[in-house]
């Protein structure tokens, strides 16, 4: 039989977290899927809609600006913005 007791093991702290969150996601997806199937099958009466999640707290202006610039750079990198559009938007974000 394998001797596992007291071994250093392979899953470090980071991997442990990944295992736990990965399994939790898999389980909640399944529960969701099953819930939907059940509802369809039984033609259950519509449940009152859950209240929408509260909007995320507004990020501090500095972070937000960085986020916008990053997004902008992504769009540019994807070829969705011309150089002029990129420059104009960048000026707008920095100026705001």
């Amino acid at each position: 039989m394998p001797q596992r007791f007291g071994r250093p093991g392979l899953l470090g702290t980071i991997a442990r977290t990944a295992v736990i969150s990965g399994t939790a996601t898999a389980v909640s997806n399944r529960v969701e899927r099953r819930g939907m199937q059940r509802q369809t099958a039984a033609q259950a009466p519509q449940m009152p809609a859950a209240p929408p999640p509260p909007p995320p707290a507004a990020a501090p202006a500095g972070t937000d600006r960085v986020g916008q610039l990053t997004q902008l750079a992504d769009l540019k990198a994807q070829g969705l913005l011309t150089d002029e559009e990129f420059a104009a938007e960048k000026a707008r974000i920095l100026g705001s």
Partner: protein
Amino acid sequence: MPSDLQADTVGPVDVAVIAFEGNRFDGRIVPALRELQQNETVRILDLAFVSKARDSSVSVLELADPGVAETLRQVTDVQFDLLSDEDLRTVSDSLGEESSALVVAWENTWAARLAAAVRGSEGELVMLERIPRDAVVEAITALGAT
């Protein structure tokens, strides 16, 4: 330490946790793992099947245990005890009732071969990174957008 697993020559090692509904091992994943092992893409180093019953009791099946031995032995009959009891407890703690997971540790033999080729060509591997799935999807989707 087993003579054919050496710390200085082993390639990169991955651990996969494959979760299943229900707590019986049905072995459907075995042929795929066996193929990866046989064509030397990976070398399975360790594996265990962890399951949690309705009453939250946990059981661990090993390669040698009757019931799974026949199926798991098709994957490999050599096993190094690299996963610790603590590792398996982490997995079992994360499992819901009536679910199970196959925990597999493998050496990426293809990467060891790549590394040898790199050394042979006097190159230097400066980065080897698993790219997050989302980034790959985004990049591929962008191909169609242009």
